[in-house]
């Protein structure tokens, strides 16, 4: 049985590379004095694939604004979307780290849930804010480390290893909560998320800072490059001197910490944690990550693409909800958006490959 592989390994992504080369070579060309044939301008197909998700997002915003002029394009609604999506963004960012290294981490939702429950339980027991936060991050780091050991040292398939740890965490959740809703009793922990920055919730600032940080690490440092090489050609990367085991392990550990942070923020902001909290956050995070891999830098899991993926899904469900649609419509929308965006980029990639290569 072969679980699906992360797309860095699939041929489609490789086929689409021609596009990202066109994009990234623009700056390189200017400073390259070597003679080489002029490259074709990016054609409509390239633009459609690289920016399809963004175009779709803009169209959607226009349509909802026309249909719902009083409720959708209001500053309150925009603020609500941005604040509501801050935590999903952090979780989606967590997901792209193992994905870039070529592996799935299915425990991220469960880590988020367990961290939220840990946070409330500790706060209610009187632990001060810094202790609670550190405990949450430690939970994420520990689960991430266990995942890393299983995958890197023992050699368990990541899909299965992280599924197993997710299942264990869901059991622990039931144990800690006694199978009932936990309610935050102290204001101290709520303070983590109640501050406002420019009249926006502070979680948005957290998400922006983390996005910038991750963007820097993934795109601008050797760490990010080696992480991607680990995902795209593990043997070659290893033989070239990349310590692939370390990159793989750190992707799980950092992802665990980020997911735990998202959990702590969620508990602080919401003030409650259901015993089953967590898993429902996993699929949207992956959907956003995969949507993100079709845009900005097609073929790569990238930070801004992922952020846009989260926003796209959020705008869709927000607009539909405001239109009075029921939950099932939103679910169908989310699934269909993912299907269409990813298929479109694969199809256009294939068409271009036929035509130009």
């Amino acid at each position: 049985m072969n679980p699906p592989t992360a797309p860095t390994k699939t041929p489609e992504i490789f086929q689409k590379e021609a596009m990202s080369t066109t994009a990234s070579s623009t700056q390189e060309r200017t400073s390259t004095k070597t003679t080489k044939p002029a490259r074709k301008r990016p054609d409509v197909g390239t633009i459609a694939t690289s920016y399809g998700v963004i175009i779709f997002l803009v169209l959607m915003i226009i349509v909802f604004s026309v249909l719902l002029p009083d409720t959708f394009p209001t500053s309150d609604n925009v603020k609500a979307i941005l604040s509501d999506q801050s935590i999903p963004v952090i979780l989606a960012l967590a997901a792209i780290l193992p994905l870039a290294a070529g592996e799935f981490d299915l425990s991220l939702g469960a880590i988020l849930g367990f961290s939220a429950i840990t946070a409330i339980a500790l706060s209610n027991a009187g632990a001060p804010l810094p202790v609670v936060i550190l405990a949450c991050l430690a939970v994420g780091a520990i689960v991430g480390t266990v995942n890393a050991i299983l995958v890197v040292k023992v050699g368990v398939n990541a899909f299965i290893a992280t599924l197993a740890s997710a299942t264990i965490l869901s059991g622990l959740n039931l144990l800690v909560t006694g199978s009932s809703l936990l309610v935050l009793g102290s204001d101290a922990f709520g303070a983590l998320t109640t501050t406002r920055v420019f009249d926006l919730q502070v979680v948005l600032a957290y998400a922006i800072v983390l996005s910038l940080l991750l963007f820097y690490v993934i795109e601008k440092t050797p760490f990010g490059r080696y992480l991607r090489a680990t995902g795209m050609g593990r043997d070659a990367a290893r033989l070239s001197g990349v310590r692939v085991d370390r990159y793989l392990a750190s992707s799980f550990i950092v992802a665990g910490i980020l997911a735990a942070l998202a959990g702590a923020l969620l508990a602080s902001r919401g003030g409650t944690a259901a015993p089953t909290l967590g898993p429902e956050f996993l699929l949207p995070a992956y959907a956003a990550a995969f949507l993100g891999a079709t845009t900005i830098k097609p073929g790569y899991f990238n930070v801004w693409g992922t952020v846009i993926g989260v926003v796209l899904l959020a705008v869709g469900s927000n607009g539909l909800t405001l239109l009075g649609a029921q939950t099932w419509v939103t679910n169908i929308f989310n699934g269909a958006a993912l299907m269409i965006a990813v298929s479109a980029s694969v199809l256009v990639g294939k068409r271009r490959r036929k035509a130009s290569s």
Partner: protein
Amino acid sequence: MITSDTDVRTGSDALRIENLSKTFSGQRALNEVSFAVPRGKITALLGMNGSGKSTLIKVLAGVYQPDPGAALTIGGTAMPLPMTPRTAHEAGLRFLHQDVGLVDSLTIADNFAFVDRFRAPGTFGPISKRRQHEHVAATLEKFAISVHPGALVGSLNPTLRTMVGLARAFQDEEESGVQAFAKNIVVLDEPTASLPVEEVDTILTSLEELKANGGTVIYVSHRTEEVKRIADQLVILRDGKLVADEPIAELGVDDIVSRVVGKRLEKTRIPRRGLREGDVVLAAQGITGRRLRGVDLKVRSGEILGVAGLVGCGRSELIRILAGAQSPSSGHMELAGKSYAPDSPATAIAAGVSCVPQERRREGAVLPMSVRENITLGRLKTFTRNGALDGRKERNGALRLIEQFSVKPADPSRLIGLLSGGNQQKVVVARAAGFGGTALLLDEPTQGVDALAKQEIANIVRGLAADGLAVILASTDFEEFVGLCDRVLILDRGRLVAEATGEDINEEHLALLCAQQGAAA
């Protein structure tokens, strides 16, 4: 034994290409190429790296769509263009592509089956495992491949993989006999690039046999001796244009090379320098592994040491162990007098030992990354400022190596997977040899590299050695030892059994040493 059926066709052209062009995003890989392939002959398709050979073959195979205006005739019938894999198969074309095209995660038998659907009764009918295995086993046996049809392709070494790919290209000919031989056109893109001599011989012999039975072959190789031995007709591409289309008859090896390269190549033989006197850089004692049985060796600063031997002698394992890619089960290594026990290639590289691994596509290149990213992979420390990548520095560093190793096209942002095979190899060599160090390990470094670039790489390696680097070269190409090495060790089933120095390093003597050991078994 040519049957009357094929007599009708002998003399006519098996395949005729007219006005074939292929443009990749504004770049011409093939430029109005026209030639004919005579039936019942072996036609060598030659050209330097990136000249368009593989592209031409992929057009025939229906992988690439040619530019409008081309025409293709097979066996007198005009083919509709673009070809598809199906029309190509039906027209009798059989391929062994440069990248072999086997699926690692499937067994040999399954790899045979997916080109060969007819063996199952309909798409949904049950596949007869037993029949399939019997058929595959028979084909493998004809090619002297002694592995089980149920073995995973990923577990085979490059030699066996190539042999399996070749056997697969031949399979239905084997089945339906002479008639099919005469009808089909077998197209082989560098089947011998990473094969040792004795396997090359197996392949050449089967090709000659095929021809004797009326078969038509298109054969790509950078090894001119092979071409001279088996080919009847010569078709040469340069920068996508046809530059020669003639019978090979009178041409010598040097004539062929100069037609390919476009100028005469001087054979550079290094003056025999006698044994090196430098300090010992890398020393190994009693290295034992899966194949190796206690190997002792020493390489001195400035020395180029060759390691030769038959398949399975442990050449690549020795390189892997020295490069930190595999741990020896016992033995001791020293680097510049200090104990050296790398736990990973990263440690080895940090200690100054870098390596060109044997399998380019899996171990050498990260195919979905750019040439720049591949050249600097594992060496990014040199290209950072305050911990962050310095894009300009990296690009300049990559450009310098691209120029030094004449990677074409000289575009650092191009994906390495879109480069021609030989140019990919140059990138891998550039990474290993371009960043200094104390020892350089080369496993089959010039596989798939054309004659000119081979010479350039040899010059670079010589230069590095002159600067004091210690070099170990494992190769199946004896000519490479002659051009480069100060000393050659012969490995036989995991043991060092002979050593050649000075005038003894010549192709005949090395072949003799290797063969003696094989025969002594």
